């Protein structure tokens, strides 16, 4: 049988005002696949994720997510279609406690009993004990790393089917970095489709099946994360 594409991005163009950021990107992912996206600073990785998540509107090109066209869909609808987005700058809500930040993740979850919600939240606390210690603390006073954990927990708690992750291990201590990657691995095993933007090549390659390399808003290379010569080419493509 032939595999159906869950996510299909075709010749996607995105502008910020006049500056042409994404200049025709093609990317696809099948159910349960996890994809790495690499590129220099300013290549357009974040913009790509933002476009999929509905934060910025593409000027042309198509965005398909199992049957739905995403191009003109608002972020909250995108979320309800089962797409979770963890942005690079964490976006913890100031003035909200860790607990409240976390519960926000379940806002959209309809028809779930409060018991289940509580269970889901507790699962997150189990996974990130550091957060459990800080339930009542204002989210923005967490340490950089803790904020990153909170940001991930907040999105994962709703078990999205497609996960857009932007530089999750940024500013994390090696231990946590490992945790994060193993977490991503777990999510993958649970069948979540993942789009992962990373600067930490080693970890990211290990955690993904395939990768794309982006430069100046174009895909300049794609390959399998496992294959060594693909990795080689990747290094050449984006290292200085």
């Amino acid at each position: 049988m032939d595999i159906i594409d869950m996510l299909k991005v075709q010749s996607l163009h995105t502008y910020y005002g006049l500056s042409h950021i994404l200049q025709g990107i093609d990317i696809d992912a099948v159910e349960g696949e996890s994809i790495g996206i690499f590129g220099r600073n300013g290549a357009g990785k974040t913009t790509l994720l933002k476009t999929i998540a509905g934060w910025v509107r593409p000027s042309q090109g198509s965005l398909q997510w199992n049957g739905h066209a995403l191009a003109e869909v608002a972020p909250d609808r995108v979320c309800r279609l089962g797409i979770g987005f963890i942005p690079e700058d964490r976006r913890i809500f100031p003035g909200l406690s860790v607990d409240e930040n976390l519960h926000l993740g379940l806002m959209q979850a309809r028809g779930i009993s409060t018991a289940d919600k509580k269970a889901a939240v507790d699962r997150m606390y189990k996974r990130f004990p550091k957060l459990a210690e800080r339930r009542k603390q204002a989210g923005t006073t967490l340490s950089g790393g803790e904020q990153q954990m909170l940001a991930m927990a907040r999105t994962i708690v709703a078990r999205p089917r497609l996960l857009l992750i932007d530089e999750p291990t940024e500013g994390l201590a090696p231990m946590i970095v490992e945790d994060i990657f193993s977490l991503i691995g777990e999510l993958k095993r649970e069948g979540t489709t993942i789009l992962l933007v990373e600067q930490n090549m080693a970890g990211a390659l290990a955690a993904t099946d395939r990768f794309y390399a982006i430069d100046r808003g174009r895909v300049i290379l794609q390959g399998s994360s496992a294959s060594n010569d693909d990795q080689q080419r990747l290094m050449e493509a984006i290292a200085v």
Partner: protein
Amino acid sequence: MKAASLTVRDLSRSFGGLRAVDRVSFTATAAKITTVIGPNGAGKSTLFNLISGALHPDQGTVALNDRDVTSMSPELLKCAGVSRSFQITNLFSDLTVGENLRIAAQFLEPARSMFLPIRKSTRALRKCSEVLNRFGLAAKAGVLAGALSHGEQRRLEVAMCLASNPGILMLDEPTQGMSHGDTAETAKMLKELSKEVTILLVEHDIGLVMSLSDHVVVMHQGRKLSEGSPAEVRANADVQAAYFGHH
């Protein structure tokens, strides 16, 4: 500004019940690179905040070559030569990149030049364009800082600290979010600088830490776990357990 040594004694600060920094002491020798590592939430940034005057310590002292600067206001510390970057990017997002740097460089000018036309502040302007080139931001000089990509913003963040020729440079995870190439660049540059500037670093990129640092301080749950040369620290079992995780 001349490189000075920075000495921290018994520095402590707690938030409510939590002792974020707990009786930490160490010395960053002049014109050397001292790196603070430790798991997330260990208290590194808080330590930075205490030294740079963003927070006041509950107890303990901070000294620049024996001159006590404990809980001095940030602007005074700046005059004493301390310049810091932020882990969570902290720029003038609706001013241009150039203007961001120019304001940072303005510090090089005498006070009265504040009231004179900009073009009179030649030193600042020169420094500004120099830094722009050094960090490869010249092309973006006219762009609003808020419109930079994350990595580019991180670069600007570091650049602003350098613009004022500090004697002591405190960088909180400078290479965070920088792509490989830039990270290497930055490392090279820091090595350069460390000839005339005292550098205090917070980093999670172990490779960088090991290659760069002259001296490493390890923090864990607010306390100083150990310190020493990179090699020593790597060898230390507690550090292994607390930070690197099971290798």
